[in-house]
């Protein structure tokens, strides 16, 4: 394949009016100058990329390469974040590639209403991620772990009793964590326009002492972001056995599909 073979990598969709000012001097995933494709009241933020790295075969191979993936994911996110600083943006999932500009224009035309509605939804809003990590030890201790009867022999029965107690404490810790996570999510929803729970990480690999009990993400009015942060801090103070972590503000990655898919 010749290195002249190129395609169009799509980063985001934005409103059309000021697209020129918004792309500025951004550099994209292939080191290319980021540009826009005019579609009337919508614009697509794109870059011209080489097929030998971003074609179908190459992508399939490269996506399995953690180094390539991490550099490309950061570059893709960097463009979207930069665009987001100057106004509403619909981030596009990484690795969405078109043959040429005409195909992108077709996309803007056929999905115009969806995109405009989605832009409305995210205008003036940011996404904030909140994860809650449960501390197994602290949560288990929160339950009433009955003290070991004094002077008891280490008989089989005693072992089984103890084992049962441990299991009960474990179950209690899990249900306590789930309840706390639910309370955190419900509270944060009151400070957000919308919120979702994503699948939490695998308990088996998030370690023995901490596991993810909530992986939430929230669409928040920009002027309410400080209030939202304060709510997270306050929840941290009042929540037992849970450590909260907040990330963002992000471009509204998790809230672009709602209008489109419905």
């Amino acid at each position, binding site marked *: 394949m010749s290195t002249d073979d190129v395609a169009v990598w799509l980063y985001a969709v934005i409103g059309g009016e000021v697209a020129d000012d918004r792309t500025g001097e951004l550099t994209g995933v292939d080191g290319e100058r980021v540009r826009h494709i005019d579609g009337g009241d919508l614009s697509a933020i794109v870059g011209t990329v080489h097929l030998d790295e971003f074609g*179908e075969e190459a992508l399939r191979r490269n996506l399995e390469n953690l180094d390539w993936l991490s550099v490309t994911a950061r570059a893709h996110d960097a463009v979207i974040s930069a665009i987001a600083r100057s106004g509403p943006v619909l981030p596009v999932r990484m690795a969405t590639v078109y*043959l040429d500009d005409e195909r992108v224009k077709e996309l803007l035309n056929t999905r115009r209403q969806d995109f405009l509605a989605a832009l409305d939804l995210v205008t003036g809003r940011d996404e904030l991620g909140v994860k809650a990590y449960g501390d197994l030890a602290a949560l288990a201790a929160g339950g009433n772990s009955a003290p070991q009867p004094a002077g008891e022999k280490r008989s089989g029965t005693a072992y089984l009793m103890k084992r049962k107690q441990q299991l009960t404490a474990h179950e209690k810790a899990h249900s306590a964590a789930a309840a706390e996570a639910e309370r955190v999510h419900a509270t944060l929803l009151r400070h957000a326009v919308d919120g979702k729970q994503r699948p939490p990480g*695998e308990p088996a690999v998030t370690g023995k002492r901490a596991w993810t009990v909530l992986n939430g993400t929230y669409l928040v009015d920009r002027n309410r972001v400080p209030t939202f942060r304060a709510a997270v801090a306050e929840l941290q103070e009042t929540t037992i056995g849970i450590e909260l972590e907040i990330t963002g503000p992000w471009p509204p990655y998790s809230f672009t599909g709602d209008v489109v898919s419905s």
Partner: protein
Amino acid sequence: MTFADDNFAPVPRTSSGGALSSSGGSTNLGDILERVLDKGLVIAGDIRVNLLDIELLTIKLRLVIASLETAKEVGIDWWEHDPWLSGKSSELQLENERLRARIEGLEAGNGQREVIEARRAEPEDVD
């Protein structure tokens, strides 16, 4: 019930102020991948990449990243305090020591015999 204060950061860990900060190199790769691979507008491009493959990959990465970060956060040595693991490792250590002692014995006393045996083996190879 008491607060185990070591385990709780009184203030959420992320420090970012107002600006969109996700482009910075410091942002957790897992958080970025979770968004750029799982979320955003999902549109079928002209160049087809199997989305299922990507999702599987994301999950795999999530596992790796989560385990690395957790190891870092909870202290890299947590497994050393695990009775099952530490019991296992000391057993291995004992076996290792036994084997080493045997090897030393063999090397010290029986080097001669090895040579003889090697010579005796030669005629058979010729057959």
